[in-house]
Structures are given as C-alpha cells and as structure tokens.
C-alpha cells in the first residue's frame, strides 16, 4: 500500500485535500489520524487572513462551491500552534502555501523551514477565491515556473505544486512546473463556478464566484490526471470528487501515485479511513501487491 512522493514515503496513498481537513484536530475526534498516508493542512499565508464574507459555501448538483478566501491565522501561528500537535501521528505533514506575489510564497516557505514539523510544501497557485490569490500563477506556465523555482531555492523539503483546472492546457502547466523543479504535482484544485440565488437575484456566495468541488468534477479531474501523468515523470497526487475507494483507484489507474480526499470529509467524517480500508480490500481482492501495479494502468496497458 505504500507509495513515494519524492523522498517521502506514505504508508498508504491517501492524504487529505488542503482546506477540507483544517489542521486535523476536528477529525481526530472521529479517528486516529495516524492511519492516514499523510495529512495536508489548510492554506497558510504570511499574514493572518480573515477570508471572505459569508455565505462561503453553496450546494450544487453533485458538488459544492466554496469561497473561504484563505482564512488562516498566518504562518507564525500555524507553526507555533497548529503543526506541532500533528507530529504525534508520525505521518508526513504537507503544508499548503498561498500568497499574492512570488515574495509572499518565498517568505512563507522560508518561515516554514524553521519548523521541524513540515515534510513538504504544497504550493497553491490555484485558489480561485481571492482577488490576486495566486490564480494568475496557476494559469500561466511561465509564472507557474517562476514561483516554483523561487520556492525550490528556499525549500529544503519537497515542493508539490497544486495545479488549477481552469486552464486551456493543463499539460503545459504540468510540464512547466516539472521543468522548474517541482518534486510532485497535486491536481486538481476547484473549478470556478457560480450559483445564483433566485430570490435575492444575486450570486449565492458572497464572493460571487466560488470553487466547485465534489463528485461533479471527478471526470474533469480524472481526465487531467490521465493526460498529465503521461506527460511528466514526477508523481501526481490526484483529487477531485473522491468519495469511495473505487474513485481513488480510478485516479491511480489514470496515473496518480497518491490521492487526496476533500469534500467527502464534510459528508462523512470517516471518509479517509474508509477509503484507505477500501483500497486495501480492493488490492487483496484483486491480488495487487503494490499500488505501483495499478498506477497508470488505464494507459500503460493500452500502450
């Protein structure tokens, strides 16, 4: 069941999707977090951020919109108060980093390097919910490469770059960040969407647009994973609508090395352990010795 993201070993291929798991402590009331392959925590910025006004979420057919707006206590408090307690679970901790300028990203990363509690940084160049929230880095291969390079220079831990699906050519984005030194890619962040409140005659979410996640986006996420996996040689953490072990395996067959579970945690707080157990059972039932044997099966067998 174990997989490798660069030098990091995850004992199973399941991590949490950033922003959908807080800093873990709420879910620790439901199960022992040490069963996870890794934990990916909320986006962190250099300064504390209040985020957007409410409503911040809306339900959509087969999915949801969110526009939290990167609310977080800032990197100092994250290091001081949130990360240390995660060490006890003895699983890798991935910290999602957000910013408005290349300097922001670099500053957060530098600051995180002072902590012993960070095993990888996940660069969020794809948050659609804040003005100047990094999405320009996520839609232009050149800027994506620049921010990746800058972070690589200051990071002593692996750098995972999280791609936005709101682009014409996801493969170009992936290749650009790979060439710039990314150790892994995570994908996809949310699709930009909107719901309109017919009574109020205005967007339901206070921010106007929000990020679409959940089962509705799974086919887009699987397609992008399938395309990118064939174009790059760094590992991919696949996500977007994973609710069950079968969904996770679909991403792995598309070419992901690991998967992240986001929205499903809201529906079922036990989603992650259930998915991990389901993958284990699937491997047993199908005589699969290593996740590697499934990874990319959808195209490897075609070749």
């Amino acid at each position, binding site marked *: 069941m174990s997989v490798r993201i660069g030098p990091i070993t995850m004992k199973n291929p399941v991590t949490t999707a950033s922003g959908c798991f807080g800093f873990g402590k*709420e879910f620790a009331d439901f199960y022992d977090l040490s069963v996870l392959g890794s934990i990916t925590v909320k986006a962190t910025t250099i300064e504390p951020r209040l985020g957007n006004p409410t409503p*911040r979420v809306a339900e959509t*057919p087969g999915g*949801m919109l969110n526009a939290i707006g990167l609310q977080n206590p800032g990197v100092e408090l994250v290091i001081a108060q949130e990360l240390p307690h995660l060490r006890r679970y003895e699983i890798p901790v991935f910290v999602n980093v957000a910013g408005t300028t290349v300097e922001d990203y670099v500053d957060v990363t530098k600051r995180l390097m002072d902590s012993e509690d960070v095993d990888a940084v996940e660069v969020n160049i794809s948050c659609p919910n804040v003005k100047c929230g990094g999405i320009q880095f996520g839609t232009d291969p050149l800027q994506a490469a620049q921010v990746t390079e800058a972070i690589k220079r200051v990071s002593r831990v692996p750098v995972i770059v999280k791609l936005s699906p709101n682009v014409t050519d996801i493969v170009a984005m992936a290749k650009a960040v790979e060439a710039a030194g990314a150790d892994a890619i995570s994908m996809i962040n949310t699709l930009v969407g909107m719901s309109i409140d017919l009574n109020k005659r205005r967007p339901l979410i206070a921010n106007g647009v929000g990020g679409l996640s959940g089962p509705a986006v799974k086919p887009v996420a699987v397609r992008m994973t399938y395309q990118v996996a064939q174009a790059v040689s760094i590992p991919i953490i696949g996500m977007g609508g994973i609710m069950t072990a079968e969904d996770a395996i679909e991403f792995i067959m598309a070419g992901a090395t690991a998967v992240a579970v986001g929205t499903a945690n809201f529906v079922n707080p036990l989603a992650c352990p259930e998915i991990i157990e389901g993958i284990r059972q699937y491997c047993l039932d199908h005589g699969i010795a290593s996740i590697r044997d499934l990874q990319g099966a959808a195209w490897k067998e075609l070749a």
Partner: protein
Amino acid sequence: MARLTILEHREIAENMMWLAFSAPQDLRYTPGQFLHIRVTDGVDHLLRRPISLCYVQGEGGAKSQAIAVAYRVGGKGTELLRKKKVGEELDVLGPLGNGFTLHEGDRHALLVGGGIGVPPMVELAEQLTQQGTKVTSIIGFQSANVAILQEELSRYGEVLVATNDGSLGLQGFVTDYMTEELLATADRFYACGPTPMLRAVQAKMDGKVEGYLSLEERMGCGIGACMACVTSCRMDDGSVGYKKVCKDGPVFSAPKVVFA
C-alpha cells in the same frame, strides 16, 4: 455519526415537520446543539443539513430514547427529508456545537424564538424547569399557519405569541412583548431565530438582561474544519474576529455577537 431509525414523522404546520428518531448510544447533549443530517445517500444533495435538537423524549433514566427535531421544508434537501418514512434510517452526526448555558441560580428566564428558531426552546424549557427556573416563552411567526410548538412550550410556562399578520396572538414582533416590567423580572434570556429578530433582541436586552443568541450560517463540514460558517464576534481582547457557528456556536453570549 450514526444511522438512526425514524420513529415519528408528521406535518405539524404548513411545511413544518416533526421528526423523531432513535437516539444514538451514549447520547450526551445540551439544548441549543444541532444535528447534522444527511438527506440522501447519493451525491445529489451532498451537504448535511444542520437542524437544532428540539426535544429528547423518554422519562428519567429512560430519557434519551428518542430525539425530536422540527424543521421547515424550504429547499430541495428538506423536501427529500420530508419523504422519509417511519422505519427508514437517517444518517446523523451530532449533537454538535455549543448549546445554551444553564445557570443554576436563575429564577426566571425568557425564551425567545422566531420561526424555525423556536424548536431548540423546547428542550431548553424542559431543562430550565427541571432546575427550578421559571420560563416565559415569547415566540413569533409569519402567520398562524406556520406556528409551531406553542402547545409543547405551554407545558413549561406562559407562552406569548406574535405573528407578522396578527393571525395568531399579538400582531407584531417578539420584541413588542419585551416591556420594561417583563425584562425587570428576568435573570436571563435565550434567543434563536432570524437575524433581524436576533439583532432587535440584542438591542432590547442590552444592559438589562444577560443572555444568549443562537446563530445560523451555511455550513460545509459542521465540525469546525472548513471555515464556511464564520460569524463576526467580539474577541476576548476586544477586537472583532470570526468565530465558527458550528463549533464555537451556534450559541454565543449575546454581547459578543457583532451583526453586520
């Protein structure tokens, strides 16, 4: 999280449903907490619906046999919920959040509920009565056809009813009942209802009666992880910041709540 069997399910006013289901094992709760209910097993309506615990049925040691909630059928999810029949199972998380704080020495408490903010007052009235606090309920509705739980609350003390159109009780708002005289007799108030009502209640009580407001906000997770449900509050250091309705609330000390 538990799958609980539906024991009762019926309409108690227009589009207002009473739903009772078996209690989870080792039920622990305070009035004002909410249950986070899945309305379908599919992905059709993904998010859970937060519904306040209304009443815990059963007597003495047997108390906690069944939990009841009262909800309004408004959107697609509650429309689906309404279709569930006695004997079917519900996927329920909770009770969640911080409920109302009871103060042992209180002699008289005002319970203020508006519309679908009335349900949590029932269990609260029960517990206040048990500890010897006298209860007066002031409840408001749009109209008589959507009025609920008046009878249940009248078991615990006086119930004052207001409707917007005067079709039941006083024509007006719950705050119209809040005379200087009444407030002078009260040690505490507890309020739940629409934001305009809560704002008016907060203003009316300010400096006169201490109390609590129970807030509503659209939720993602319901357990404090996603930051969807924040509301502006005065922090201990005096600054204004966000608190989470699902975890820090839904009940807040009234003066802490900052309305936009």
